[in-house]
């Protein structure tokens, strides 16, 4: 068995994928930064100086302290504090964790729905295709953010603020996942349609293989690389969507902050000159999204330059 794994590893090391990664400084740097941020988020409870969820650790006297290097700063709070006196570094670490969880969670849901519906629509065609794609069209023409805002608003109105706060993280994964499935479904459908015409599929039919076997064993593996590319970009989009929803007050509550709700909570104080409460989490968000987008761009160039414009 070891020989097989070694040969797979060798194959990977000889692949164009690895080759172009090694040569692309931007991709390497982006990957390093992303890895660092993901690790920091995973180990936030160990790394963070304080626990922002623990009310006992918060002192309102420490509110709106500026980051180190500015007059009035406290070395105990390297990035300063927010309006409630929470250590900004800790809230950012925890907030990144929440943002990443929602980003990945939403994309896993999207990918599940998108792959399933895209595969069904593309392979079965006919009425299934027409219905699924019409739904996708309507949703897309409405813009995913709009759909997410509406669904979020409906949820918020029906659950009330308190209840919504408790289940917000699952709600957001659900909202963003459901709002964005058409993106992946369309990509999958397009590549299924292209693959379906290829003769290896006919060859499988001629062999008498069943529809499910052909769909999942023969076609699906060949549509994975575009899915991979779009899923990467979708993680970035999901994180932005989460931030936007939180910013509008339809996302994570301030007691359980994500990067978006941190930005929102700081926005009220920006007029009073406490710019760091907004702009530092904002910077972290931009860097996070940017490195994911850069990796997505690189992946697209490697896997298929013609795929996914825009």
């Amino acid at each position, binding site marked *: 068995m070891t020989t097989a794994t070694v040969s797979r590893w060798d194959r990977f090391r000889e692949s164009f994928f690895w080759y172009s990664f090694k040569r692309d400084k931007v991709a390497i740097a982006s990957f390093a930064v992303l890895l660092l941020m993901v690790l920091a988020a995973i180990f936030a409870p160990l790394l963070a100086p304080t626990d922002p969820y623990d009310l006992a650790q918060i002192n309102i006297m420490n509110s709106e302290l500026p980051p180190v290097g500015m007059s009035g700063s406290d070395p105990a709070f390297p990035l300063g504090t927010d309006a409630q006196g929470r250590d900004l570094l800790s809230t950012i670490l925890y907030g990144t964790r929440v943002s990443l969880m929602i980003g990945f969670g939403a994309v896993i849901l999207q990918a599940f729905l998108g792959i399933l519906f895209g595969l069904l629509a593309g392979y079965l065609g006919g009425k299934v295709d027409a219905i699924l794609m019409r739904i996708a069209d309507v949703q897309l023409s409405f813009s995913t953010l709009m759909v997410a805002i509406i669904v979020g608003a409906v949820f918020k109105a029906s659950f009330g603020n308190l209840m919504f706060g408790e289940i917000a993280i699952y709600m957001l994964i659900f909202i963003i996942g459901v709002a964005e499935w058409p993106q992946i479904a369309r990509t999958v459908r397009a590549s299924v349609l292209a693959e379906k015409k290829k003769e290896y599929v006919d060859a499988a039919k*001629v062999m008498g293989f069943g529809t499910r076997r052909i769909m999942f064993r023969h076609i699906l593996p*060949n549509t994975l690389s575009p899915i991979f590319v779009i899923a990467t970009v979708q993680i970035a989009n999901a994180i932005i969507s989460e931030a936007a929803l939180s910013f509008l007050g339809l996302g994570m509550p301030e007691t359980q902050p994500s990067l978006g709700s941190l930005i929102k909570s700081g926005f009220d104080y920006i007029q009073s000159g406490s710019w760091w409460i907004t702009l530092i989490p904002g910077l972290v968000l931009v860097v996070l999204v940017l490195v994911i987008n850069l990796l997505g761009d690189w992946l697209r160039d490697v896997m298929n330059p013609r795929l996914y414009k825009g």
Partner: protein
Amino acid sequence: MTSPLVSIRGLEKRFDLSGSLLEQISFEGGRFRRKQEAVHAINGVDLEVQKGEALCVVGESGCGKSTVARTVMGLLSPSAGEIHYDGQRIDNLDGKAALPYRRKMQMIFQNPYASLNPRMTIQQTLEEPIRFHHPDWSQTQVRDKIHEVMHSVGIDPDWGSRFGHEFSGGQRQRIAIARALAVDPEFIVADEPISALDVSIQAQVLNLLMDAQESRGLTYLFITHDLAVVEHFGTRVAVMYLGRVCELTDTRTLFATPRHPYTQALLSAIPKLEDDRPNHIRLKGEVPTPVNLPSGCVFHGRCPYANERCRQEVPQLIATDGGTQVACHAVEEGRL
């Protein structure tokens, strides 16, 4: 005469173009009309493939030859007509009932770059059909079978762990043939199996197909546009034009005495090495689209011998004294 292995009876195939009801509505001459359009790919084809022969179907693009192949293999369902295999009707079978015929009938495709699953190794490509059709076979039996077919198409069995893209076009076509042979078929439909290959590779693959026919007693339905290949490979030839068979005869007779005016033009269009100067029979116009079929004989618009009857009445395949079956009024009336 023994009963045919495969018989195609009154086959018709239409592809609907008009889409949903709304797309069919048009506004003409002051009123709404519902217009339904379809591609008439095959319009009544009767063919019988005898055991052990290689029946070639030739024609230009859009004549329906590939549709015949795909309908016979069950990749498309006929709009009308029947397909029989060894006396049993098979076009209406589904799922389990069709499985035995899936094994007995196999297909080789045109494009060797698309006919192998890019995510599967050669080993997996060959193993899957064997296991599927012989779930009771042991590991060794399966492996021996894979070795046997790879050997017989001239691919080193040690290359099993490689992927399709690591091979050249000719080698891929060999692997595709091996996949078809892996389930021990009796009948093979080959849809333009060599037209995507280079000349020197074409010869290799044709030889391979002829060897397999000899050693395994295969029957072929061979689809091609290349008459030179037909002359070399075919036992009998069916010439198709716009979804109909216009001439059906054994190969030698066709090349010696082509009867249908279309066959004659087609034969004269082959660039030959011996000629110094081409001497083509020039046809008027171009092949009409199979959407709006001409009335009467589908060839009348381009035929130099067409008369009023050709424009009105559809000619049927009629046997002539040379044994050739021709669908042409001019031949029937002795004008040609």
